[in-house]
């Protein structure tokens, strides 16, 4: 009796494994056939865009999202002229280069001329004034003197 039950148990186990293997093979085959006919998975396009996991994917609406006065995608300050700066000044180099720098009107214009003469920057037309105004208003030079005091010191107990 015991042997018979054991045999039955073994058969059941093998049966379960077989079912699993066949369904796996089946699934892979279906997925494979599907991928051949639709390699870009375009059918899932709309559905995945609404799932929470895909929220980090920038879509057109998020792209120019502003939070606390900062244009998230570039880190630039939200103010008049922002989009002109984004569209003309972040194609070749990062917005980080703009944000790091502090110049007056004359030197921002000189920088634009240099980029036009040597770096393939296009004629900015009427946008030039808007861009320069944005830059001098939002990123003006501050006085640093000949040596600044140490700031943002993170104090810690030195263990030795």
């Amino acid at each position, binding site marked *: 009796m015991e042997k018979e039950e054991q045999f039955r148990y073994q058969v059941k186990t093998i049966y379960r494994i077989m079912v699993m293997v066949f369904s796996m093979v089946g699934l892979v085959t279906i*997925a494979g056939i599907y991928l051949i006919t639709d390699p*870009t*998975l*375009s059918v*899932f*396009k709309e559905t*995945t*865009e609404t799932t929470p*996991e*895909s929220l980090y*994917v*920038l*879509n*057109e609406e998020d*792209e120019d999202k502003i939070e606390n006065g900062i244009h998230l995608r570039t880190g630039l300050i939200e103010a008049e002229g922002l989009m002109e700066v*984004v*569209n003309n000044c972040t*194609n*070749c*180099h*990062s917005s*980080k*280069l703009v944000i*790091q*720098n*502090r*110049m*007056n009107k004359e*030197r921002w214009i000189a*920088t634009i001329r240099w980029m036009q003469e040597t*770096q*393939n920057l296009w004629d900015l037309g009427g946008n030039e004034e808007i861009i320069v105004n944005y830059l001098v208003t939002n990123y003006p*030079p501050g*006085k*640093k*003197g*000949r*040596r*600044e005091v*140490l700031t943002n*010191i*993170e*104090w*810690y*107990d*030195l263990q*030795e």
Partner: protein
Amino acid sequence: MERRDFVKKATLGVTAAIAGVHIVFADVMPKGYEPLLHQDPDPFKLFDKDKEMVVLNDKPWNIEAKAHLLDDRITPNKYMFVRNNGLIPENIDINSWTLTIDGESVKQKKTYTISDLKSKFKQYTYQLTLECGGNGRSEFDPPAKGNQWTVGAVSCAEWTGVRLRDVLEDAGIKDTAVYIGYHAADKHLSGDPDKEPISRGAPMRKALQDETLLAFKMNGEVIPLAHGYPLRLVAGGWPASVSGKWVNRISIRNKIHDGTKMTGTAYRVPCNPVAPGEKVKDEDMCIIESMPVKSLITYPKSGAIINKGKKLKIRGHAWAGELEVAKMEYSIDFGSTWIECSVEKPANRLAWQHFSATIDFPEKGYYEVWARATDTKGASQPMILPGWNPKGYLNNACHRIAVKVK
């Protein structure tokens, strides 16, 4: 469960790649340019850098260290600054990489593979200090244009390669030779294939020095991609822009090399001193050669709090461009008094030197420890900013850390 996760992730990835990202100006984007969003956006993983490194710019990549990260005697890759002018070349095949020696003053134009270089010429290993000409730019007033480096655009790694001199002499140098200029595989930011992001060089006397290498190893391993794999020119003690990365051609010129960032105001300072903010004509700007004397306190990290009566050990590195550091001092009273401390001899010429000291603080309170190096010609680091220059180069003002005694 695993399978489901995998399918979910894969679907998401593919969807993100094909559908999610809207690219402004896709129509004017240069062909072959891969938008940043499609590259791995994590520079720390991408370049194997420590998380504490500071990204100044992500297009092109410019990343600097902080003083306390540079504590190692030989800088490991994870703490080495990255200064790029263009886009890092892609799909490099070390086996098909070649270096061509050409120019007006080469006797015979010659091309070498990396294995030619390795088998034909003797190999040398040196510790070489590389500092960006604009290291410390952020402190200038009026501010200077460019990446706002603080203190961390300096490194001293161990470079292995062949002497540039041996290779140049193998091709043959005419008497008319004045300068060498490098050309490399990095791409211009605008995508224009006719533009070089940077093509600098050095006068023959620097090119022919023992320590000027065509390197294929950094710290005993192949050079990391961001630092010039598979072949890099290394000219220690001069602005690091002389040490061209991804080098595939070196021209022996019969005049001062006129490549990108050799002319105009790039890597130049006024030939004669100017007042802060003064305009300087291009013809009054002179090419930077040796970097000035400088030092960095790498231990402890600024902001240390210690108990009264406890001694503070400090240490760091000092370097002096083409020269050596002859004396090292520190001050805990804002320069009223200076105390000399020990500084080691360099491992080889152009390597940075290590200093250390043990400090007693007289009272409780706020202190700054200032470090000052003096080179073999008697020049010391200034406590205030050195001479202002339009592009903000050569800031070798004393480094300091904050310390509190409680």
